[in-house]
């Protein structure tokens, strides 16, 4: 608990981060930037878990532990995505989504 800060303020921040992530994922044209947006979304989720646990259900630790797992899984996801991006960069020498697109409707 932070003195003087209610749950509404923190949840507002996490929701804003979440939607910044979604906006970034949809509008960015660079693969790394898209990956960063996904990280924002995951971190908004992690923040939510910690806050909800601390303010609403302080007698159990489910949410806090969940957030630790989110951080670990996000790292694994990023590592795999970066590996694929590096391989793709070797093949097409670009990170732009426009150059990437060969398969379309």
């Amino acid at each position, binding site marked *: 608990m932070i003195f003087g800060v209610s749950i509404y303020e923190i949840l507002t921040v996490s929701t804003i981060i979440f939607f910044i992530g979604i906006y970034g994922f949809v509008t960015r044209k660079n693969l790394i930037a898209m990956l960063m947006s996904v990280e924002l979304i995951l971190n908004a989720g992690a923040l939510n878990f910690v806050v909800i646990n601390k303010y*609403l259900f302080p007698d159990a630790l489910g949410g806090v532990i*969940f957030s630790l797992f989110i951080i670990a899984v996000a790292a694994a996801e990023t590592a795999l995505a970066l590996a*694929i991006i590096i391989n793709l960069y070797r093949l097409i020498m670009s990170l732009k989504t426009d150059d990437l*697109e*060969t398969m379309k409707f």
Partner: protein
Amino acid sequence: MNLNNMLLMRHELILTTVILILIIADIFTADKNKKSVNYIALGLFALHTVIGFIPLKTGTLFGGMFVTDPMVYGFKNILNTGVLLIILLAISWVNKKGLQNNKVGEFYILMFSSLLGMFFLISSRNFLMLYLSLELSTLPVTALAAYDIFNRKSSEAGIKLILSAAFSSGIFLFGISLLYAAGGSLYFSELEGHIGHSYLSIAGLIMFFAGLAFKISLVPFHFWTADVYEGAPTPVSNYLSVISKAAAVFILMISLFVTLKELKDIWIPVLYGISVLTMFTGNLFALRQKNLKRFLAFSSVAQAGFIMMGMLSADHLAASSVLYFISIYIFSNIGAFGVVQLVALAAGGKENIDDYNGLYRTNPMLSLVLMISLFSLAGIPPIAGFFGKFFLYTSAASKGFYVLVFIAVVNVTISLYYYLLVVRAAFLRKSENPIPYFKSDIFARIGLIIVVIALFLLGLYSPFYDYIDSVTKILNI
């Protein structure tokens, strides 16, 4: 927790052992003998599949996070059989693509790891477990989609899959956090009946549903499907289209029917709309495809719409008809993808529908298998797919969704048209240079024979449906 309790997760323990043995075997096999890793993987997995059929006790582990009951392990056995068939069909492909750059063992290790994730996914009764197992089942598949590292399309499929999977799991997480706020727990059993009916829980439900809908490729979330299926290696597309979809449908069904049943009046209209949209979009896009893998991708999107239609009635009949349909769908789709893969392997990457002109004259058996699988997907009577669809209609009609059943019948008619286009190309069209005759290896032939036998038996052999109907009684709906 003692050994007796641990045996409840026998499927997972044996599969983990198989993965470890494979890693060691892959290290200690000399480079010129790498082919034998295939046979080790196949033998161990076949053993695992057979052991899986021994019945297990019912019980929970880890304080209720993990559950085993006849429905769960019966479904695990269905998934095992599907993966075994995929491996049988994939061996010749893995030898061709993986042997020269020493990546044979990798294919099996990644596929089994993903299957391990699926096992935990369908056993999980806790949102933390659900999230972790969802990631465990997705991440190895993305690595597999980019398996063919010198192929640009394969890498493209990999990056599309990982980005959309990460995006969807982010939305999924946010939804879970809202459900956690509404219910105060992460356990399904404690959430049941405590979620309430507020804007908070509805927002949580929608985001949770969106995350899983990405995996099942329901319509507003299906954009990755066609690209990934086309770009990824065919055995991987096969795996994605059946096993991964089936496990996600199973856990979606459990969580909607049991945990979130308070919000029934919200998710039933949502499922209704999504089912109609999914059927129409999948079918209409499938009409204009030239590439057979893209075509099968859109057909699998349309099939997901039919599955959602069966889930609408939210009772035992819905659960058993969905599980029955999925187990038949696994066999039909594996058959269709298997033929595409064998032809592409033998004829140097020919995947377009026009390339199949005159296939019956050169490869009669293969085109018969293709025909039976496609007829099963379309739902033509003597073959199992018809019975699967029939039960889905029964389930939807039992709660009075007659309009939806009518829409579904219209969609079956559309789908019959495009499935028949492929059959016409193979059987009636003539071609100047058809795909020449080729002989597949013994494993692929065994796999296709099992598929064909299953497609004829599963529909007509009624104890199979009775079995599924009896195990779904466990669901506390």
